[in-house]
């Protein structure tokens, strides 16, 4: 059922491929697909009119379907935050408040659309659409299953980076055109922040590109498929051929990609302006940052774009590092790829929300310190390391993957060991300091209170 649906979705979405736009003859399969579709059903029209018509319809469907993701995410955010904060969250609209976001959307649409009289009206109107467009254009290159991919570009991941870098411009224009000093501050902060954090993001992605030796998103997913088993099923369980393993995922392929994953994830939180890096819209400092002056539907557009961005960066992380739409079962996808990548993505999104509702916000200089003094050097180290790793292991083999896994586990275990062993021996003051570093005191204290309580009950 899901596969049927997804293949139908493919029929529509694949038509939007960029190849159809290029003046090509026979080089791009996607273009043929769309042309074939157009000529078959709209043959009575001149060829290109039919094609443009089909593409417009597809684009409309795309724009109509993708915002459902933010819709779900907003609700998820509210529910997750409610659970974390010991509340129930929205409960009134629909069962368990499921329709709350919809109600909010309706409310926002009918709200008065205020434009400050001193604002630059043209740019003020334009900025939300720029951000919206860029956020959604990213989805065109993310493979959601082996069939659902709008366009498999040669430069897939690079296209994503380039499009998402334009969001910064939208934010700046929004902040500047509001003619409010708080908005301007938000815009300036975000300009500095987004431009800075694009570097560790790009460099982390580069490690993956170096490992996969392609920039195509499909290619990167394929590179995480069965390198360990080299196409042969490792084991056959109940008639299902288990081909890949988690160890094939890019994150475990070398110690450096493992690091790169965390660098990418941290930086992408900053890229989408979420706590602890939500300085452009820090509500306790800048009121609401760059969208202070926006209301009604324009504000909703920002909101949707923000959540679309959140989903996009998590989907990219899942694609690049966590095997994309591939499960660990066979190629014919026992579970539909769409569900798998959604599962992985929502897991990452959940982690982002978890972080958001737990941590305070950094200050501007600390934000920049983190980026320039830690993340970027680590990223360069990763690239160097990946290059050297690649010299030693030209092909992924059982040896390389085993070694990588060994190093990663040693790394993790030693960090955990340092943390937990040394903690008990410290003075309270040192504990406070260390707790700041790793939050182990939090664990420790929770553990003791838990023990005490359970001890008391017995």
């Amino acid at each position, binding site marked *: 059922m899901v596969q049927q649906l997804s293949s139908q979705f493919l029929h529509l979405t694949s038509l939007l491929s960029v190849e159809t736009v290029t003046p090509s003859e026979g080089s791009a399969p996607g273009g043929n697909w769309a042309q074939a579709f157009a000529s078959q059903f709209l043959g009575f029209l001149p060829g290109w009119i039919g094609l443009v018509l089909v593409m417009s319809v597809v684009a409309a469907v795309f724009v109509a379907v993708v915002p459902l993701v933010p819709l779900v995410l907003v609700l998820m955010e509210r529910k997750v935050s409610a659970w974390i*904060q010991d509340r129930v969250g929205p409960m009134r609209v629909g069962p368990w408040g499921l329709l709350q976001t919809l109600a909010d959307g309706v409310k926002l649409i009918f709200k008065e659309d205020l434009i400050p009289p001193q604002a630059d009206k043209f740019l003020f109107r334009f900025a939300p659409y720029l951000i919206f467009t860029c956020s959604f254009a990213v989805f065109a290159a993310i493979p959601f299953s082996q069939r659902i991919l709008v366009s498999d570009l040669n430069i897939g991941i690079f296209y994503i980076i380039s499009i998402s870098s334009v969001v910064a411009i939208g934010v700046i224009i929004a902040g500047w055109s509001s003619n409010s000093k708080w908005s301007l501050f938000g815009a300036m902060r975000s300009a500095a922040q987004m431009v800075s954090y694009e570097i560790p993001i790009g460099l982390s992605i580069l490690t993956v590109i170096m490992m996969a030796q392609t920039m195509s998103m499909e290619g990167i997913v394929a590179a995480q498929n069965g390198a360990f088993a080299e196409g042969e099923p490792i084991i056959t369980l109940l008639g299902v051929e288990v081909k890949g393993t988690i160890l094939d995922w890019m994150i475990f392929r070398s110690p450096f990609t493992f690091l790169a994953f965390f660098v990418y994830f941290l930086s992408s939180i900053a890229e989408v302006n979420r706590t602890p890096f939500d300085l452009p819209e820090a509500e306790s400092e800048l009121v609401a940052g760059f969208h202070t002056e926006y209301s009604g539907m324009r504000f909703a557009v920002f909101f949707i774009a923000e959540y679309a961005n959140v989903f996009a960066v998590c989907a990219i992380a899942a694609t690049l590092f966590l095997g994309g739409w591939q499960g660990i079962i066979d190629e014919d996808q026992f579970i539909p790829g769409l569900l798998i990548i959604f599962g992985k993505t929502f897991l990452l999104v959940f982690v982002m929300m978890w972080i958001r509702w737990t941590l305070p916000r950094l200050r*501007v200089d600390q934000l920049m*310190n983190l980026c320039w003094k830690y993340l970027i050097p680590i990223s360069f180290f990763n690239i160097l390391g990946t290059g050297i790793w690649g010299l030693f292991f030209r092909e992924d083999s059982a040896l390389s993957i085993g070694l990588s896994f060994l190093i990663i586990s040693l790394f993790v275990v030693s960090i955990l060991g340092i943390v937990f062993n040394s903690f008990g021996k410290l003075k309270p003051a040192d504990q406070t300091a260390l707790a700041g570093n790793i939050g182990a005191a*939090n664990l420790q204290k929770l553990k003791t209170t838990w023990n005490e309580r359970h001890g008391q009950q017995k």
Partner: protein
Amino acid sequence: MLAQSTASEERKFLELKPFSDEMVVSMGPQHPSTHGVLRLELRLDGEIVREAIPHIGYLHRCFEKHAENLSYQQIVPFTDRMDYIAAMNQNWGFCLAVEELMSADPKFAGVPERAEYLRVLAGELNRIASHLLAFGTYGMDIGAFTPFLYAFRDREKILLLFEKLCGARLTYNYIRVGGVSRDLPPGFLDDVREFIDYFEPKIDEYNALLTNNKIFLERTVGVAIMDEAMAISYGATGPNLRGAGRKWDLRKDEPYSIYDRFDFDIPVGEEIPEAGAVLGDCWNRYKVRMDEMKESVKIIRQVLDGGLPDGPIVAAMKAIRPPAGEVFSRSEAPRGELGFYIVSDGSVKPVRLKAKSPCFCALSALQELSRGLMIADIIAIIGSIDIVMGEVDR
């Protein structure tokens, strides 16, 4: 592992040469984190604050002028509206002053013992509620939203207790001149005990959640240091002074009411070199409040365990007509020393009533504290000195 917190130390001495023109921004009176209607005139060089000039008076309700036209008992509800977060303590401070004024009158027998216990109970509960709010909003100022809701969840329980006690949730008008307005409702002490049993472990949880958080430390440790001399010169009292390392609490040092009967500590700020904490920085000011909640719990527990004496809850008196004279009386409110200066001419109304507000004094230090810091630090300072504009503007 990311960084010792040397960054904050560096910033202390950081002076950026101005390259661009100054930008003047009004922070407030409508701003999410000015804790009311405070307006700061920020003179900025980029993110660096050259000068933050506080403008107050947006919540000025002529309390002192009103008071000159009201009888003493009628003034009590007005004190509620000063520091509406800790209204019990405001009532109490005013009543103390009037009672001191009346002590010259031989007909005034003094506050009954039971009333004193009830006052301590209400006052300390309100101190917890007030510090909880400070903790929650401070977390929100720094960018953590969740502590705020935790704090409000627990503060709600205290408000419910107060509602049982006096019918009001915010402006209690409970402590009256000569005693308190009504006796305990049935089962109230059990409710209080249940609450403090529930609440005491929560403080450690909050410390784990926010106080020791790495980012929180980065944001508050070593920021805006108000040392002891500066705090005294600015008249900053309460947690702001204790955060600077001075062990000074009127409840211990000049005990009023029955505070000399209770065993509790006065938490003061501490230097933690490993974390970079300096006496008088934002973190210490904040931390003192967290520790004070524990001490308040201790006091409440002693009130409950010691057993309340029976007896009247309000002194027998005909009319509150203190003899002519003047008095300046201080009490330890959650935000510092609350002083009332009352001049009486022997009538039922004061000739002059001046409220010396702790927030007013602490806020006046903001201008000096904030020089050369960043916008985000201003927020951290305002939260850490914990102002309530109702009390500043009166």
